[in-house]
């Protein structure tokens, strides 16, 4: 095994809210792992907790949080700061606000190299130019002197990824990096991400709520619902044979050309993600589930199939009541 990131039983809470309720996740070298789910199901906070960027008032615990084989759950702020931006990097959804409006692109890139590599200014500038070129930014030397507001959204996101890759990290976490971009720019950006990942042998944890994105780039996918991973497996296997009713609902809501009956509605799951507090038991999806039964209030069993494919539902792999 070549796991870059291993998470076991991660839990995050805000006050009475249980935002993440024990998730397991492994990202391997050279692999893109997608975390999907509707808004508010806990994707972002899970990702932030890996870099320990959660707000102070968040409750956080994990049975194991290992990065490149070392447990980092107990690492202090200083130790984490040494890893961030160097061995693990993160880019965010909002390229508009994620760059500091008061500084040039150059200033915001160079500081990473100076911090983690102790590079001289000149060396840092060269490296930044090379990296910008690599992510497809035209006229990179000029860009270094520009301010964020002078760049388009797509360019800014490229700058973000170039900055993230400066120190050749082992893990890149991207939290909905394409959501704020135009569709064409989105496609370009995903292609870029896939290229770079292949070239650098990067482990990527990609967060999205767009199953179309998952289908295009993911090796493995984890479907999250209300703070739990309800289904996980190789992308092909999950898309071909989704087992959890929630995954099925999500897949049914992707528009596929030619598949929508004339005048028919896109499949979508009625209702919203519940906010779950302490003491909640049973399946969180039961209120919206088409096949829910009274017994769904009992603790949910997990079923394991071939190739690490697993899902958590009272209905077993054969679709029959598994009688936990």
């Amino acid at each position: 095994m070549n796991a870059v990131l291993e998470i076991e039983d991660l839990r995050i809470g805000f006050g009475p809210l249980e935002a993440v309720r024990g998730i397991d996740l492994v990202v391997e070298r050279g692999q893109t792992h997608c975390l999907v789910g509707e808004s508010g199901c806990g994707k972002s906070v899970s990702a932030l907790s890996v870099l320990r960027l959660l707000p102070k008032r968040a409750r956080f615990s994990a049975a194991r949080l290992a990065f490149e084989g070392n447990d980092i759950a107990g690492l202090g702020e200083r130790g984490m700061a040494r890893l961030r931006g160097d061995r693990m990097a993160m880019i965010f959804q909002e390229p508009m606000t994620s760059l500091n409006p008061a500084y040039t692109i150059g200033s915001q890139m160079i500081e990473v190299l100076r911090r983690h590599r102790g590079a001289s200014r000149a060396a840092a500038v060269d490296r930044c130019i090379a990296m910008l070129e690599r992510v497809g930014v035209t006229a990179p030397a000029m860009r270094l002197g520009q301010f964020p507001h002078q760049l388009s959204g797509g360019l800014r996101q490229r700058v973000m990824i170039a900055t993230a890759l400066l120190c050749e990290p082992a893990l890149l976490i991207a939290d909905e990096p394409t959501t704020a971009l135009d569709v064409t720019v989105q496609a370009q950006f995903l292609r870029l991400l896939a290229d770079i990942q292949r070239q650098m042998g990067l482990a990527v944890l990609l967060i999205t709520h767009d199953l179309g994105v998952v289908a295009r780039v993911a090796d493995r996918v984890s479907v999250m619902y209300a703070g739990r991973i309800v289904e996980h497996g190789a992308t092909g296997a999950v898309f071909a044979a989704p087992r959890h009713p929630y995954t099925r609902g999500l897949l049914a809501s992707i528009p596929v050309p030619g598949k929508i009956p004339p005048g028919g509605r896109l499949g979508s799951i009625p209702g919203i993600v519940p906010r779950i507090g302490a003491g909640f038991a049973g399946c969180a999806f039961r209120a919206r589930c088409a096949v829910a039964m009274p017994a769904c209030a009992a603790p949910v069993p997990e079923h394991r199939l071939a190739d690490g494919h697993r899902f958590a539902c009272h209905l077993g792999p054969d679709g029959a009541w598994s009688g936990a």
Partner: protein
Amino acid sequence: MIRFIVRSLLLAMLVCLTVLIVSFALTRLSGNLAINLAGPDASAASIAKIQHELGLDRPLPVQFAAWADRALHGDFGNSYLYHQSVSSLIASHLKVTLQLGAIAIGMAIIIAVPLGILAALHEGTWIDTACGLVALIGQAVPSFWLGLMLILWFGIDLRWLPIAGLATWKGYILPSFVLSFVAIPVMLRLTRGGMVDALRADYVRTARAKGLSRASIVLKHAFRNAAMPVVAVSAVQLGFILGGSVVTEVVFNVRGVGYLAWESIGKGDFPVVQAVVLLFAVTFVGLTFLADLIGAMLDPRVRG
């Protein structure tokens, strides 16, 4: 940018012109200036004489035109009291006022900005509450009373600092400190608010995700953005501090412009009063303009 500057400048000039009219009208508020000047026992003839000498017997618009014309050329006439030109009188008093004002705004920044940052970093804790209390008390304390109390404590009880005058550098400490209280609450709140917003901003999260040091995150990334309004506001606050110089200079017996104005008002020396009102107003307008300009310069989005 150029358009912005020209527009603000025009507006500033218009404001100054209005204040010119106001400061003239102010001294014509009472029925008869000459009676005031001549004193209660003056004879009708001597009043008439004063009236004529000062041109007070001419129609008001004529008086205003004559005064404004000279004022625009920097000639505010002669002081009734000191028998010297108002311009030179003010010039000789201006230095200490400006010195005290400059030290005061420096003190305000040195006190308010770190406290504001500290409060923002510890938002919601007792440190934040304590800093809020500093701002609250700073706003509530009457500055003349604070001055007197400081004189009692540091001048009389502890004997560390002189109780009046600016003979040594120590004399500057208390008056500047009292003056700085005009600006501290506003600047503290502004710094705190700006820092709280900045620390929550996405770009600070990015900075943390890049593994930068805490100092770099707080000072380079967060404070740079929080500082923009603070810098702009300190220019305006300097204007308020100058306004506060009247009270402070009287309390500490400092012979600055504020003291001069107070003395002149009490003795009916109106050419001086008019000139000081105008001076303060023009300074304030200038500082406000400067604040707009600094605000625009500091923001790369506006600088373009």
